[in-house]
C-alpha cells in the first residue's frame, strides 16, 4: 500500500511541476505581445501620461520576472487579476483599486456552468459508450457491430458544430423538444437547467462516444483469445456473462484511460459547443476574451483549461494503476 501511495505522490508532484512549466509558457506567450497592453487599450491617440498611468495601474512597469512572480502568487491565492475590459474604465474614474470586475468574479459562475455541462455529458456518454462497446464486442462482426463502427467513425470525424447544428435542426427547430439556446441564469430550477443543458450535452456525447466505444470494444476483443476466456466458455457460460465477468475487469485499465482522455477532450470540445448554443460557460468567455484581447481573462482561462486537462490525465494514470495489480506492485 505504501508503494501505491508513493506512486500517486510521484504522479501528483509531476503534475504540479508540469502545471508550473505550463504557467511559464502561458505567461511568456502573453508577454510576446507587441507594444504593451496600455498602448493597446488606449489606442494610437493616447497621451504619454495616460499610458504611463495605466501601465502603473496594471504593474506593467515592472520587469517580467517580477510580474510573473506577482501573477503566480496572486493566482495561487485565488486572485486572478482585473479584466482589462473593465480596468480600462477604472483608471479614468480615478479610483485606485479599480471598480471593474475581477477575473475571478467573471470566471467563477461560468466555471460552475461548464462543470455542470461536462458532468451531464459524462453521465450520459460514459455508460452509453461502454455499454455500446460491450455490445459491439459481444456481437462482433455482425451487422450491429459494423453499423455502430460506421456510426462511430462518422461522428468522431464530424466537426462539433456540424453535429450541433444537425441536432438543433432535428430536436429544436423541426421537432421543438429541446430549446436551442442555453440561456442559463442564476437561481434557475434544476429541471429547467437540465433541460437547457441537454442539447449541448447530447452534442458533446456524440462527439466523445465514438472513441470510448471503439476502445472498449478493442480492449475486450483483444482478451477474448486468452485461455481463461476459452475456459469460461467451455464451462458453458453465457457469452454476456463471459464478457462482463471475465473479460471486462481485465480490460478496465485501457477503458478507464480512454474515458479520462475523452473527458479531457471535452474541455476542448466545450469551447465550440458553448459558442454554438450560447451556453454561458468558461469556453465562451475564453473565445470572447480572445477576440477583444482581454489578456488577464485569456491567461486565467488558459491556465484553468490546462490544469483540468493535466488533472484528468493524472487521474487516468492513477486509476489505471489502481485497476491493474501488476502495475500496483512494480518489480
Amino acid at each position, binding site marked *: 500500500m505504501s508503494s501505491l501511495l508513493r506512486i500517486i505522490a510521484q504522479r501528483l508532484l509531476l503534475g504540479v511541476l*508540469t502545471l508550473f*512549466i*505550463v504557467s511559464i*509558457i*502561458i505567461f511568456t*506567450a*502573453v508577454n*510576446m*505581445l*507587441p507594444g504593451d497592453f496600455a498602448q*493597446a487599450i488606449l489606442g494610437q491617440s493616447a497621451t504619454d501620461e495616460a499610458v504611463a498611468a495605466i501601465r502603473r495601474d496594471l504593474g506593467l512597469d515592472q520587469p517580467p520576472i517580477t510580474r510573473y512572480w506577482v501573477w503566480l502568487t496572486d493566482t495561487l491565492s485565488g486572485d486572478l487579476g482585473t479584466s482589462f475590459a473593465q480596468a480600462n474604465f477604472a483608471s479614468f474614474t480615478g479610483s485606485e483599486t479599480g471598480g471593474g470586475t475581477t477575473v475571478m468574479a467573471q470566471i467563477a459562475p461560468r466555471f460552475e456552468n461548464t462543470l455542470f455541462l461536462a458532468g451531464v455529458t459524462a453521465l450520459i456518454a460514459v455508460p452509453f459508450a461502454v455499454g455500446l462497446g460491450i*455490445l459491439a464486442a459481444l*456481437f*462482433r462482426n*455482425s*451487422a450491429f457491430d459494423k453499423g455502430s463502427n*460506421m456510426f462511430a*467513425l*462518422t461522428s*468522431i*470525424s*464530424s*466537426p*462539433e*458544430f*456540424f453535429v450541433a*447544428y*444537425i441536432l*438543433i*435542426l*432535428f430536436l429544436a*427547430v*423541426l421537432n421543438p*423538444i429541446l430549446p*436551442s439556446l442555453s440561456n442559463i441564469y442564476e437561481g434557475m430550477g434544476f429541471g429547467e437547467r437540465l433541460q437547457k443543458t441537454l442539447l449541448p450535452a447530447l452534442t458533446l456525447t456524440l462527439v466523445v462516444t465514438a472513441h470510448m466505444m471503439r476502445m472498449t470494444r478493442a480492449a475486450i*476483443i483483444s482478451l477474448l483469445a486468452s485461455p481463461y476466456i476459452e475456459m469460461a466458455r467451455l464451462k458453458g457460460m*453465457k*457469452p*454476456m456473462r463471459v464478457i462482463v465477468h471475465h473479460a471486462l475487469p481485465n480490460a478496465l485499465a485501457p477503458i478507464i484511460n480512454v474515458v479520462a482522455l475523452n473527458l*479531457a477532450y471535452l*474541455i*476542448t470540445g466545450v*469551447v*465550440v459547443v458553448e*459558442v*454554438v448554443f450560447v451556453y454561458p460557460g468558461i469556453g465562451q468567455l*475564453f*473565445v470572447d476574451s*480572445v*477576440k477583444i*484581447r482581454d*489578456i488577464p481573462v*485569456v491567461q486565467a*482561462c*488558459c491556465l484553468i*483549461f*490546462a490544469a483540468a*486537462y*493535466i488533472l484528468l*490525465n493524472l487521474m487516468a494514470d492513477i486509476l489505471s494503476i489502481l485497476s491493474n495489480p501488476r502495475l500496483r506492485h512494480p518489480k
Partner: protein
Amino acid sequence: MSVLVWIAAILAALLAGGWAFRFAGQTATGNKPYFRDMPFAVAFGYVAAAAAILGGLWLWFQPGAVFFRWAVQGFVISAIAAFIFRLAGRHVGTEGTRKMFRQMPLTAAFGILVILIYAVLAIFAGVIAPYEQAQVFTGVNILPGGDPATGGDPAHPLGTDQIGRDLLTRLIYGAQNTVGIAFVTTCLAFLLGGTFGFLAAVIGGWLDNVLSRMVDVLMAIPSLIFALLLMTIASAWAGSQQWLLTIYMILIIAVIDSTRVFRLARAVGQNIVVMDYIEAAKLRGEGMSYLIFKEVLPNATAPLLAEFGLRFCFVFLTIAALSFLGVGIQPPLADWGTMVRDLAQFINFAQFSPLAAALPLMAAGAIALLTVAVNFVVDWMLHRSSGLKD
C-alpha cells in the same frame, strides 16, 4: 417528458416483440436449434431492425420529412457511386491497383472517391467555379435549388449569402483555401515532428531527453486552447494585415501538431534503430542523413502514412473550428468554417423552408464529408497493414 414516455413505450414494445418473435419462431419450426439457442438480444436485434426499416419507410412518405429523404438519397447515391468506382478500379489500371481495389471494402472506395473529387476541386477551383470568390451580386439570401418558385435563382444554383456572394463558388474556393491550408499545415507539422522524432530516435541521449520533455510540456496544454491563446497574440502581431494572420495560423497549428507527430515518429524510429541492419549501416560508417532517409524512413512509411491521414483530419478540424470561432482564415478568402458561422441563423427557418436550413449545413457537411472520407481510408489502411482480422 412525453418524449421520454414515448421512447420507453417503443423500447418496451420492441422488447416484447423480440420475445414474441423468438417464441413464434420456436413454435413454428418445432424448436429448431437456430431459434432454440437464439439469445434474446439477437431476437431483439431482428425486431428492432425490422421496426427501423418500417419506421424509415413510413417517414419517407411523410410530407414534412424532407431532410430524411435527402439523407437517404445521399446515402444511396454515394453507395452506388462508391460501388461503380470500385468496379471501375477493378478493371482499369495496373495489376497492383486492380488487386488493391479487389480487396477494398466499400467504405474505403467511397473515401478514396471523395478525396479525389475534393483534390480536383481544390486544384482547379479557378477553372470550375462560375464566379470569383469575393464577387458580390445584387441578389442576397437567395435559397439553393435554382428554382425561382422556391426563392432560388438559376444563375446561383446553391444560392447566395447575406451580402450576395455566390455560394457554389465559395464552396469550391473553400476546398482550395481550407483544404489547401490544412494540407500545407499538416506537411509542415510532419516535416518538423518527423525530423525531430527520427533525430531523437537515432541520436538518443540528451537530445532525446530534452526534446521529449519539451514535447511533454507542450502536450499538457489542450491543443485548441493553446492555438486560441497563440492566435490572440498572432492577431496583435499581424495588425491589419489579414494574410499575415493566416501564415501565423499555419505556423502555430503546425508547431502544436508536430508534437503529436514527434511522439509517433520517435516511437516508430526507436523500434527500428535497434534492428540489425541499422547496426550494419552504422558499422559501414554511413552518415546521419543516410541512416534517417535510407534506413529508418522507408521502414516507417506505413504507420506514418496512416498518421498523416489522421493528423490531416485533426488539423483540418482545428482550422475549421478556429475559423468558425472567428479567429482562423480571414474574410476575403472563402472558407467553410466562416461560412457555417455566417449562415448559422438560417437553421431556425427550417420549418418554413428546408432549403434555407440547408445553407449552413452545406459548408459544415463539406467539412464532415472530407474528414469521414479520410477516416474511412485510414481505417482500411491500418486494418490492412496490421493484418488485423479481429
